[in-house]
């Protein structure tokens, strides 16, 4: 049963298993363990980013393709749902149709990009995707009558997902069972399903071919695998999953704008999460995304403290200003590419199995 669920790919380390179990339990019981709207918001973002980062890891870690357009697909999913909800009105039909259209167009765009740029040198792909990403961000801000431009879109959700909706009249363990909670568990279930699906995918023969391409493209081709086809499929699947994560983001945040879905910052964050967690293993996405979202929400508070503690010294307060948290994560990123190329998961596995 467990073997089927995890596709035979277990964490393979006592510490890692413990950490993953802790994260899973914390996410599962988040509304009851940490009451309040901010912790719940953090927990939902952790779920969504786990899926987004896992789908990116399928490209970067498993196939060895560097793409900077992942936020575009994330954004397409989010905007698909958001535009439908904002223009048609709050209903399940609008949400599902808009989301499906977003996912579909993300996959088509991924196919187009792959068709003309995976054929040429691999290093072009990184540059082409960077160009596409910035063009898409400009397009979204220019089509403001549809997308809301820089302000983004706010909309309401179907009634069952709003805080006003009560599933059960009484409180359970002091927590109101309202639409917000329902949304959280909807997001959590969908994320868990997608994550396990990706785990299934990377451990299938298809996933093995992707890893072979990463290790030695020439040899994979010599063995008779059409590497371009496999890479194209991988980037389409990654785009589709990213777009689904985008739909969930749109549902959870009830707002979609360039800042939350399309900006280069989000792309950089995804890169940081994959690398810090560990490339080439989906558990890395879980660990990386959890740590990063927690750091994003709580590191700034810490830095504000540090900044005021060194306020007498000339440059230091600026260096530790809460707005400069990305500086420190950037340094951490460079150091981890050098010293922990396998990320946290690789480290934990290394100590756990005694290698």
């Amino acid at each position: 049963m467990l073997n089927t669920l995890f596709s035979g790919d277990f964490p393979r380390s006592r510490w890692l298993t413990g950490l993953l179990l802790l994260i899973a339990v914390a996410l599962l019981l988040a509304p009851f363990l940490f009451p309040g709207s901010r912790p719940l918001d953090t927990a939902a973002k952790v779920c969504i980013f786990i899926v987004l980062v896992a789908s990116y890891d399928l490209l970067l870690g498993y196939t060895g393709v560097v793409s900077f357009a992942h936020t575009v697909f994330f954004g397409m999913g989010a905007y698909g749902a958001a535009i439908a909800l904002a223009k048609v009105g709050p209903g399940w039909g609008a949400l599902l149709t808009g989301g499906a259209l977003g996912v579909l167009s993300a996959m088509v765009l991924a196919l187009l990009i792959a068709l003309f740029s995976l054929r040429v040198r691999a290093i072009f792909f990184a540059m082409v995707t960077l160009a596409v990403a910035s063009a898409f961000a400009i397009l979204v801000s220019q089509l403001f009558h549809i997308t809301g431009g820089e302000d983004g879109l706010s909309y309401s959700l179907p009634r069952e997902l709003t805080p006003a909706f009560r599933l059960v009249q009484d409180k359970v363990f002091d927590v109101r069972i309202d639409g917000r909670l329902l949304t959280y568990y909807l997001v959590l279930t969908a994320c868990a399903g997608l994550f396990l699906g990706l785990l299934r995918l990377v451990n299938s023969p298809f996933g093995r071919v992707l890893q072979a391409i990463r290790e030695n493209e020439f040899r994979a081709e010599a063995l008779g695998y059409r590497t371009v086809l496999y890479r194209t499929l991988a980037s389409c699947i990654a785009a589709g999953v990213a777009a689904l994560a985008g739909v969930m983001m749109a549902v959870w945040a009830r707002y979609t704008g360039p800042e939350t879905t399309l900006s280069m910052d989000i792309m950089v964050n995804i890169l940081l999460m994959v690398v810090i967690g560990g490339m080439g293993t989906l558990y890395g996405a879980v660990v990386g995304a959890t740590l990063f979202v927690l750091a994003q929400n709580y590191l700034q508070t810490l830095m504000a403290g540090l900044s005021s503690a060194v306020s007498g010294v000339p440059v230091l307060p600026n260096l530790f200003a809460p707005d400069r948290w990305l500086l420190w994560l950037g340094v951490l990123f460079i150091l981890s590419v050098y010293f922990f190329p396998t990320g946290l998961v690789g480290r934990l596995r290394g100590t756990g199995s005694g290698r």
Partner: protein
Amino acid sequence: MSGSFESLLARLRGGDGARRSGLLLIVALMLLALAGVGSLPTWITLTLAGLAMGMMVFIMASGLTLVFGLMDVLNFGHGAFISLGAFVGVSVMAALGPWMESASLAVNLAAVLAGAIIGMVVTGLFGYVFERLVVMPVYGNHLKQILITMGGLIVVEQLIYVVWGPDAIPIPRPETLKGALTFGDVVLEKYRLLAVAVGLVIFATMTAVLTRTKIGLLVRAGVENSEMVESLGYPVTRLFIAVFIAGSALAGLGGVMWGLYEEVITAHMGMSVMVMVFIVVIIGGLGSVEGCFLGALLVGLMNNYVAYLAPKMALGSSILLMVVILMWRPEGLLPVAKGR
């Protein structure tokens, strides 16, 4: 004898034909735009603007393409040098405030020159540190290079915020370079003329160094086959570093020019210009300076024509251009023949 041998080599590499088709493409684009715009004076103005933009992008892109050709390093951190150069240059020019406001062209140019030179020196030195500290440990691994240099870009951008503060800094052009010259209906912005002149000088110098000097010969040989150059006893590593420093300094110069062109600088400008730089480098063929020049002119002209005809399509048009050229020549206009 050796002359015919060289021309044979050039023909084998497809250099001449590709060069001609690249130039033809530019001429075709200009004629097409003339038909589209319909008025000669507007067309001349737009062409000058496009050339100026192309020259500035060329200055920024040439270092990147050469570094890639020589060392097989794709430096995403190149954008950081652009921003850094702009900030240093602007600080120098702000310190020389009276020179910038003087009514004499010579004094104005001296201020810009001082800003540009100090900007180039600082970015050159910074490039050296960056190469030793960040890039050197990851030679030969593209994936890590992209990740590491991207990380470097983030860190440098944040450091600029730390030093110069998070706000955009406005930078007025020097007094005599403001405004435009008009001949009848033809409007020629003065600063754009300067940009074209600087770009041509840089391109000419670079071509001369690459084709007429021993160092240039070594660099070109290194691009084609660095192992062979090394086995002949030349210090390729030192050559690499020198090219990296020169490329960083050129990025700094490009940053100063671009900052004056936009009249405002932000720490993020390097990153946003990089998109155009990448498009240019891909169109030209990674590693080729001439291809980079052709690509920059194409993108600059295309951008300005389209911005006039259909303002919302400007960046989209560059990407479309890149797609079309990649379909036609997957390696870019003037690909570099690799001996490896």
